[in-house]
């Protein structure tokens, strides 16, 4: 109880301090006040358990696990209807309900509490010696729930429910195969792993979840396992994740080595001492290991969240079905890296290099991905690059000391990116796999595609950051503002501003090309056979409203192809998401006037370990203006410029799907390079894959010749000896007798030799003593 009261006091003090700052016009997430610092930090131990949660909150991770098991049973029993989808949606919806309940519990009394709910003892090693205090390694299957966890789990479980519903129709083509159940098994397993990751009470459970989501990502990207490109993409994703996991595991081990524990409840109070040093400007006194751990965590985060240099797997991961792309590679799994950095924000503050690495990595990735996205033609790929770019924004946000900005952007991005992907998926589903924006046009004008176009539009304006009316604008603006407010990060601010402009451009390029303009489409590679179209009665199986658009074929290459308008499930989900995209606006911005920080996302972050105050830094005023105001103006300008450019290049005067005014712009080599993703994949192939392959061949040869040779030698030596010895067995009596006689002679000689004194007694005969061989007692 005392802890709770103190936390309340903390928040009040912080809020008061911040409001005081507002009058001076200095806005920033870092308050930088000694009073606030002392009160806020010393009030309660960082990250310590302050409350309790009822046991039913264990349903959050375990309901999806149950769903996974039940879908597995369906797969074994060869269930060939939509039962796995029903189970999954039910389980994950139940998990969402439990999350809401947990959230209410966590935030009751108006301030966040931290609670640990234990499922069972998992790993427990205790050992000790006489002269050393006992060491222990405890990693329980327990869940650490604080406000950051609730923030994350709310959108994870919510989006998972919606996307599971979407997928029930999207994957309906596979109902008659074993693929449907397999999809949902991996889906539920993914949600369970994500829950372990986000809710885990110790680093080991986080790592378990980390690996679990990687595994499910592999399983789901490789869902079309008969397609070689999908299999290769799955392998690529998994392997690049593993490279990042090396960093995470080393960080985990170093954490244990230095701090002696991996549990958050015990770890964070230990970090407190270093945090104090850092916040008082004595960052040099922090030991090297403690400064290195966040850097290692960053490597892991960059691997999982697709930042430089480990981002190349994410565009290829679009080979998986679209719900997978939406859930895993847009909204949830890729945010795991951001979660890691946010959770361990206090530790990042203790390191001199970690946060700059995060910030610069994020910013450069954002810029790079945006440039690549501008030159691609596959709409899902463009969305993938935009995901990478936005993740860069999030990391940059945290890196410039704005955990709130990063977390808020994660939240909003999850909704609109999921929506964008789902719309693209609907397009792909309806146009038999066609994703090339040179081959699609005017989809919005086709009957039955209104809701999809609307959802796409909402998503695009969020992504582009249309001012004031979109949640994306507010969260992005927070990040850019934080960047400009920090003197050392101004360059990052400019990079992010430029990237925002590019983002707006390529987002609306997609929208104007695919959804606007003359109606023209080509079927993709997965076009159904003619029998399906000839038999209209089959439409009942597809479960969608009739959408022939026969009068709008125009010059479609497949004369008999009709686009397959989405059905109820897809439309319903897109609508819910579109509404939600607007509904979250108040959660990420404080509209109560005065530019305060008491909006929901902020309070959620502040109530957790991510909410530590960074050290005091001076506020930078670009062009003499307040940083946030400057950022807002700047992003408005660049956003509108981008949209206008896209409008002129891709909408005005476009007569066909394949051509636009943009084709007249030839940037030569840069354009080709951007189309080829700046040849990064090729570079990786040459630098890493080929030498490894050569090395593998070398080792293979070594193994075959040396190791196998040694083993064979062990076999051959007795064999050779045997062959030689075998020749003595002639089977002929005489030879044996001869050898016996020879042996007898040798034995006699030997005995004589020994008895005559051996080598030392070498001389003539007569050296044998009486009583030895040859001498007989009378």
């Amino acid at each position, binding site marked *: 109880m005392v802890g709770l009261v103190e936390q309340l006091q903390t928040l009040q003090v912080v809020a008061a301090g911040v409001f005081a700052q507002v009058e001076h016009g200095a806005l920033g997430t870092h308050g930088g006040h000694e009073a606030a610092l002392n009160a806020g930090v010393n009030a309660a131990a960082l990250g310590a358990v302050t409350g309790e949660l009822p046991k039913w909150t264990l349903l959050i991770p375990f309901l999806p696990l149950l769903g996974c098991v039940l879908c597995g049973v369906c797969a074994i029993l060869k269930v060939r209807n939509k039962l796995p989808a029903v189970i999954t949606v039910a389980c994950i919806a139940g998990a969402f309900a439990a999350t809401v309940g947990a959230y209410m519990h966590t935030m009751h009394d108006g301030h966040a509490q931290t609670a640990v709910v234990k499922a069972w003892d998992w790993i427990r090693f205790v050992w000790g010696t006489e002269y050393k205090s006992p060491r222990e390694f405890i990693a329980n299957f327990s869940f650490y729930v604080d406000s950051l966890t609730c923030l994350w789990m709310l959108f994870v479980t919510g989006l998972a429910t919606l996307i599971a519903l979407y997928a029930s129709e999207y994957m309906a083509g596979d109902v008659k195969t074993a693929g449907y159940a397999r999809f949902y098994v991996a889906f539920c397993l993914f949600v369970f792993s994500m829950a372990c990751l986000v809710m885990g009470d110790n680093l080991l459970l986080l790592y378990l979840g980390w690996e679990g989501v990687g595994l499910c990502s592999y399983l789901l990207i490789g869902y079309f396992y008969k397609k070689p490109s999908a299999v290769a993409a799955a392998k690529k994703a998994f392997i690049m994740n593993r490279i990042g996991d090396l960093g995470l595991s080393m960080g985990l081990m170093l954490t244990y080595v230095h701090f002696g524990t991996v549990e958050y409840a015990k770890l964070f109070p230990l970090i407190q001492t270093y945090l104090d040093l850092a916040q008082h400007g004595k960052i040099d006194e922090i030991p090297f290991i403690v400064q290195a751990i966040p850097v290692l965590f960053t490597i892991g985060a960059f691997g999982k969240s697709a930042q430089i240099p480990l981002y190349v797997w994410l565009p290829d991961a679009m080979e998986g079905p679209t719900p997978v792309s939406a859930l895993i590679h847009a909204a949830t799994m890729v945010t795991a890296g951001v979660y890691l950095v946010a959770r361990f924000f206090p530790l990042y503050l203790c390191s001199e290099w970690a946060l700059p690495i995060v910030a610069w990595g994020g910013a450069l990735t954002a810029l790079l991905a945006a440039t690549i996205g501008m030159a691609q033609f596959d709409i899902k790929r463009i969305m993938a690059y935009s995901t990478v770019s936005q993740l860069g924004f999030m990391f940059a946000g945290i890196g410039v000391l704005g955990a709130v900005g990063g977390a808020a952007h994660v939240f909003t991005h999850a909704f609109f990116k999921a929506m964008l992907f789902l719309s693209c998926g609907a397009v792909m589903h309806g146009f038999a796999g066609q994703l090339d924006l040179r081959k699609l046009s005017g989809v919005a004008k086709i009957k039955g595609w209104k809701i999809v176009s609307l959802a796409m539009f909402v998503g695009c304006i969020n992504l582009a950051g249309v001012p004031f009316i979109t949640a994306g604008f507010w969260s992005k603006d927070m990040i850019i503002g934080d960047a400009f407010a920090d003197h050392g990060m101004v360059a990052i601010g400019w990079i992010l501003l430029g990237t925002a402009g590019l983002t707006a451009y390529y987002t609306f390029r997609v929208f104007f090309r695919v959804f606007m303009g003359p109606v023209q489409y080509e079927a993709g590679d997965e076009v159904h056979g003619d029998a399906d179209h000839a038999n209209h009665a089959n439409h009942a199986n597809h479960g969608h409203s009739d959408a022939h658009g026969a009068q709008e074929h125009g010059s479609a290459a497949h004369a008999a192809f009709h686009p397959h308008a989405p059905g109820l499930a897809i439309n319903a989900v897109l609508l819910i998401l579109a509404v939600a995209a607007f509904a979250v606006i108040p959660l990420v911005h404080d509209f109560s006037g005065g530019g305060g920080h008491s909006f929901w996302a902020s309070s959620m972050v502040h109530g957790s370990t991510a909410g530590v105050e960074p050290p005091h830094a001076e506020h930078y005023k670009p062009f003499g203006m307040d940083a946030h105001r400057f950022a807002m103006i700047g992003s408005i300008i660049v956003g509108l410029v981008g949209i206008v450019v896209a409008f002129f290049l891709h909408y005005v005067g476009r007569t066909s799907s394949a051509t636009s005014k943009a084709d007249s712009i030839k940037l030569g080599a840069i354009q080709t390079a951007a189309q080829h993703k700046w040849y990064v994949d090729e570079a990786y192939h040459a630098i890493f894959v080929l030498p490894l392959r050569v090395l593998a061949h070398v080792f293979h040869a070594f193994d075959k010749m040396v190791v196998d040779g040694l083993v064979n030698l062990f076999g051959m030596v007795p064999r050779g000896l045997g062959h030689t*010895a075998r020749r003595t067995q002639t*089977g*002929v*009596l005489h030879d044996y007798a001869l050898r016996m006689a020879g042996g007898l002679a040798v034995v006699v000689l030997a005995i004589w030799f020994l008895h005559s004194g051996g080598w030392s007694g070498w001389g003539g005969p007569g050296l044998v003593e009486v009583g030895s061989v040859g001498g007989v007692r009378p």
Partner: protein
Amino acid sequence: MNVLLDGLTLAQGGFPEPMASATLYHYLMTSGMLFVIGLIGFVTRRNLIIMFLCTELMFQAAGIALIAFSRFHLNHTGESFVVFVLTIAAAEAALALALVVLLFRRKESLDAAEWAEMRG
């Protein structure tokens, strides 16, 4: 020459007069040479029966050695042992020859090299 003739007597001294050990050596040499001749014959000849005959030669040599030692030590143990040796030789000859006859029936040949079925 005188040295040689002095040693020539009609008998080897009457029993129980002792025999010189050098004289014993003579008999043992004869026995040894006979044994070795028998050994060479056993290893060299291919006829099964002749091989067994050579083993009998080796028995002979052993007998001479035993009798010589018996004379040297002036007791009759050696001679009784020769009785046993004779017994054994007889028994062995009987059985060995029976086996040789059976072997001959099988292959119509007395060549010991024919029976090389145990070659490795």
